[in-house]
């Protein structure tokens, strides 16, 4: 019997080790697995590499992880959101490493990891300082830069509904990086608003098939 549901947020983040690479879904405040990130904060893992589009804002979720000095390195496309005070503070002090990646390249590098590919060549950034010192190949008359896959030890994502097999559907633009990150991590942990019985999700509309999911936890109101 397959049952990927776990009872508590602590169970959901159990076993995440120091030094882990953690993929965290979300775009701005949309689709951020806030409760899972707070559970990771309580769980205590440190020296983390966090892969996420923005660097958090205010005092919660990714910003709180950074504030508590739990993040050694962040891989993201846009760390300069309004209110990303903690990232900026630690970055200025040289206490956090930043790997800046164009947003589509960030997503595609995770896709490559999830798809078992050894990377790809992209025109994005090929003529910019982000490609300095990197392998360039001219393909179809255009310069492309090589990008390596970006796998995670863990992915923390947010979806709307799950069944016990881990099939997922999302809500509106909260989907963002979730489906890609789910494929790219050794351990994919999902927080959802609702559990449903097997067969209740329309099979034509399942967005993330349960094969990519390891643990699901329900948060908030059922």
């Amino acid at each position, binding site marked *: 019997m397959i049952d990927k549901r776990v009872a508590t947020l602590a169970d959901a983040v159990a076993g995440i080790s120091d030094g882990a690479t953690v993929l965290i879904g979300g*775009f*701005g*405040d*949309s*689709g951020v697995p806030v409760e899972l990130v707070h559970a990771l904060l309580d769980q205590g893992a440190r020296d983390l590499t966090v892969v996420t589009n923005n660097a958090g804002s205010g005092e919660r979720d990714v910003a709180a992880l950074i504030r508590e000095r739990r993040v050694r390195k962040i891989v993201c*496309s*846009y*760390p*300069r*959101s*309004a209110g990303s005070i903690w*990232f*900026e503070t630690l*970055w200025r002090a040289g206490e956090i490493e*930043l790997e*800046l*990646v*164009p*947003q*589509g*390249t960030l*997503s*595609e590098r*995770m*896709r490559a990891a999830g798809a078992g590919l050894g990377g790809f060549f*992209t*025109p*994005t*950034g*090929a*003529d*910019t*300082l*982000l490609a300095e010192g990197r392998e360039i190949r001219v393909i179809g008359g255009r310069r492309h830069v090589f990008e390596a896959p970006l796998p995670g030890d863990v992915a923390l994502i947010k979806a709307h509904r799950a069944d016990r097999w881990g099939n997922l559907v*999302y*809500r*509106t*633009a*909260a*989907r*963002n*990086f*979730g*489906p*890609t990150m789910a494929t790219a991590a050794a351990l994919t942990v999902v927080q959802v608003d609702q559990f449903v019985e097997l067969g209740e999700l329309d099979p034509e509309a399942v*967005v993330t098939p349960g094969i990519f999911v390891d643990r699901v936890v329900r948060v908030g109101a059922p």
Partner: protein
Amino acid sequence: MITPLSDVALARRVAADIPDGSYVNLGIGLPTLVADVAGPDKEIVYHSENGILGMGPAPAPGTGDPELINAGKQPVTLLPGGCFFHHTDAFVMMRGGHIDVTVLGAFQVSERGDLANWMTDVDMHPPAVGGAMDLAVGARRVLVMTTHVTRDGRPKLLPACTYPLTAAAVVDRVYTDLAVLDVTPGGFLVREMAAGLTAGELQERTAARLSFAGDVGVLATA
């Protein structure tokens, strides 16, 4: 007397060049005005990098979905026929040449169509690129919408960009508060100018050498 275009008049001029039926991505900031002024006579499908096609205007106060936001992290709506998809697919659309038109802001544009719009050489903030590089290399037609000079009067249209590039040789047309210019193999070609402006006065405000079409039009101010 020279009459520079207002932001709204500039947005109207850009909107006039977007064909009916286009799939369009508007950059954050000034370009978002284009959707506000585009008339109902054309059906334009707006794309957002966080996984939206058929994006509509801001919701009425108090009715928004907090997860349904645009690239600038502002609340938006979904029009009938619109849909959601994940980040990797959003960038397949951008990088893969499926977006017909993008309108982007700029710090600088060179006469060969190089675009610099993500960082300046005096930037004391952490670098942030988002989806700008993907959009610039991938959209079929790249339009730039900007003031002709910086706030302190320095030219933005240059023989070569001095700020780090977003992408090389990608800009097709530039719309400023003073002129509409095409990027051609021979450099900037002026198509239209603001009322009351002479060719000499426009050249004084432009570091790149300008050529002028045989029938330079006058930009509408309303």
